[in-house]
């Protein structure tokens, strides 16, 4: 399954792009699978991934959340409001 993940702020700078399209091999992939794939696709992101969260369709989700190609996926990490 092919999915696209939005990146923001310092993580977009680290990855060098604001979206990443990845292929997930699992039959019913989860955000946990996505986390592993992101580290492989964009190694500069790896150190920041453990403290990052995923949003699916603009809601925070746990790593066991299943994802589909229609979902809007976003990596939410290294946030710094205020």
């Amino acid at each position, binding site marked *: 399954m092919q999915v696209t993940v939005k990146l923001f*702020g310092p993580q977009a700078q680290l*990855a060098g*792009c604001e979206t*990443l399209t990845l292929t997930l091999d699992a039959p019913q992939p989860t955000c946990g699978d996505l986390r592993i794939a992101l580290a492989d696709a964009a190694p*500069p992101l790896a150190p920041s991934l453990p403290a990052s969260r995923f*949003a699916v369709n603009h809601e925070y989700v746990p790593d066991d959340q299943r994802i589909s190609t229609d979902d809007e996926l*976003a990596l939410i990490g290294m946030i710094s*409001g*205020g």
Partner: protein
Amino acid sequence: MQVDVELHPGPLPPAPPWHIDTAGAAIRFEGVVRPTEQGQPLVALDYQQYPPMTERELRRLAEQIAQQHGLLGLRVAHSHGRVPVGKVSFRLDVASKHRAEGLAAMDAFINRLKREVPLWKLPVYATASAPTSAPTHPEGATP
């Protein structure tokens, strides 16, 4: 309980009047863009949001904090886009019956804001060599 949330393009203008009749404490915090970041002179900070999630999470946090601390009112405004050095990018107003719950709410709100609300800041350095933004690849790309 009154809760107001605003995301504002650019620097925040001076605070509009805000008064809660029954409050015994009215506390305001303003965040100002510092002139340096990691020892390097700054021109501005670029704040990035993720609409509509940013505003939704900011409102969720404001309502939770107001309820948990028994506030009479909470008003928060945050910039998005470019904010020059010395300008206000964040303002939190809290109204409570007594000072203790207001001060605690202020601290709790700011701590959680930095962990939960999808807002990012990128420094714009005075030197031209420092990167200020990432390129967009609409088709998706592996760098």
